[in-house]
């Protein structure tokens, strides 16, 4: 049995909250550089210049990439042979979030849904725990901005709507979102399961390395087709018109009930923030 101390989890989560908000992932930077070359709109090209410069300034001057430092969404893979010692895993993650958002000069954006009173420390985090074989504990932090989250949707299609219905729902969602979720976006799609499973799959697809295709070739083909349809919309960087509306589409699939075809679209902004630590 491997033991992981809560102090290490707290420190690890704190560091992830900070680094995710200050350091753009290398694959995202590479995607910006490539997109700057292929984008045909002069305004679009200039926006990629600003996004690249923004990432450089953020790291050098210690200013978060975006003022919306997000909801701390946390994916945990807890190995069967791991024991958390000295406290509780969920409490430790929340403590890490609390310390990270305080010490990292990050914005506290979490409030009571009715009174709108801020909780003051960006907790509670949204935490998804998966039990897996092995003796590792993996924690991914994906700070999620409100602007892109607000443009996300889930619905229950009819089985007869089929793959055409799926494509239509995803493309329409992106079209209606326009400039709001800060394009160029990453589109996470969850298909199947139940209502909450589809939404969770859509969110989880966003922590995949940018543009890495689904291992199932048919789903990978669907991702490619959706990306092409989305980029034909002409929304472009920041919705001001252009060829690059999305950097990638990630699709995850789960079997569903014979009566259902659940689908969820979770949109991520261009910063596509996620960092992980393994104990």
């Amino acid at each position, binding site marked *: 049995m491997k033991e992981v101390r809560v102090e290490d989890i707290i420190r690890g989560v704190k560091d992830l909250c900070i680094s995710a908000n200050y350091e753009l992932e290398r694959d995202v930077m590479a995607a910006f550089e490539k997109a700057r070359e292929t984008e*045909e*709109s*002069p*305004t679009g090209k*200039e*926006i990629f210049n*600003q*996004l690249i*410069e*923004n*990432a450089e*300034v*953020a790291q050098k*001057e*210690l*200013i*978060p*990439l*975006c*003022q*919306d*430092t997000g909801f701390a969404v946390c994916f945990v893979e807890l190995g069967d042979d791991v024991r958390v010692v000295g406290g509780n895993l969920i409490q430790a993650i929340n403590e890490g979030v609390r310390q990270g958002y305080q010490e990292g*000069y*990050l*914005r*506290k*954006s979490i409030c009571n849904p009715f009174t*709108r009173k*801020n909780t003051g420390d960006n907790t509670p985090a949204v935490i998804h725990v998966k039990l897996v074989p092995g003796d590792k504990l993996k924690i991914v932090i994906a700070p999620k*901005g*409100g*602007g892109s989250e*607000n443009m996300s949707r889930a619905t229950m299609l009819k089985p007869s709507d089929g793959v055409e219905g799926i494509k239509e729902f995803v493309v329409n969602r992106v079209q209606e979102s*326009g*400039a*709001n979720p*800060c394009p160029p976006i990453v589109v996470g799609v969850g298909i199947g399961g139940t209502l909450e499973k589809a939404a969770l799959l859509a969110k989880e697809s966003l922590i995949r390395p940018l543009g890495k295709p689904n291992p199932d070739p048919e789903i990978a083909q669907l991702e490619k087709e959706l990306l092409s*349809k989305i980029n*034909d*919309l*002409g*929304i*472009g960087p*920041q*919705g*001001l*018109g*252009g*060829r690059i509306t999305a950097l990638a589409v990630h699709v995850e699939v789960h079997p569903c009930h014979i009566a259902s075809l659940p689908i969820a679209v979770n949109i991520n*902004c*261009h*910063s596509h923030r996620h960092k992980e630590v393994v104990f």
Partner: protein
Amino acid sequence: MIEEIKLKTPLDDQSVERLKSGDRVLLSGYVFSARDSAHKRLVDLLDKGEQLPFDIKGQVIYFVGPTPARPGRPIGSAGPTTSSRMDKYSPRLIAQGLKGMIGKGFRSPEVIETMKKYTCVYFAAVGGAGALLAQRIMESKIVAYEDLGPEAIRRLKLDNFPVIVVNDCRGNDLYKEGVKKYARNT
């Protein structure tokens, strides 16, 4: 290189009328930050017939809720938030003399109509470029609603702050025109 127009706040009708959808503008001078909760409070004051905490005539509101400033810095990360959440409130403020708004994303037909009627302009700043934009903000001072934290109203001093005119005061809309230009019908 696309030409950039240098513009100083406060704005008057003439300076707003000169701007057209698609113009790149470098904005300098004072603007006021306000987002969801602050807008609600401002409109509540108007409903009660009370005075606003600052004179809004000729002013520009920036829809932003910055991150906390590090010691010695005027402000933290400070990019625009989604403007449509302010659509319910903006027409009231425009009717009071507000001349410009900075945010991201489309506005409602009602806001666009009110902007035409009262000569107001809507600018977009690049969403998610909060670090870059923060470097063009030289001062920040809370003027109202300190209890709202990141949502407090701040007076910000801008220096060549880069924005794009999305909706001019004649009803043109860069979001619609720009997308039409690059859309492919498949």
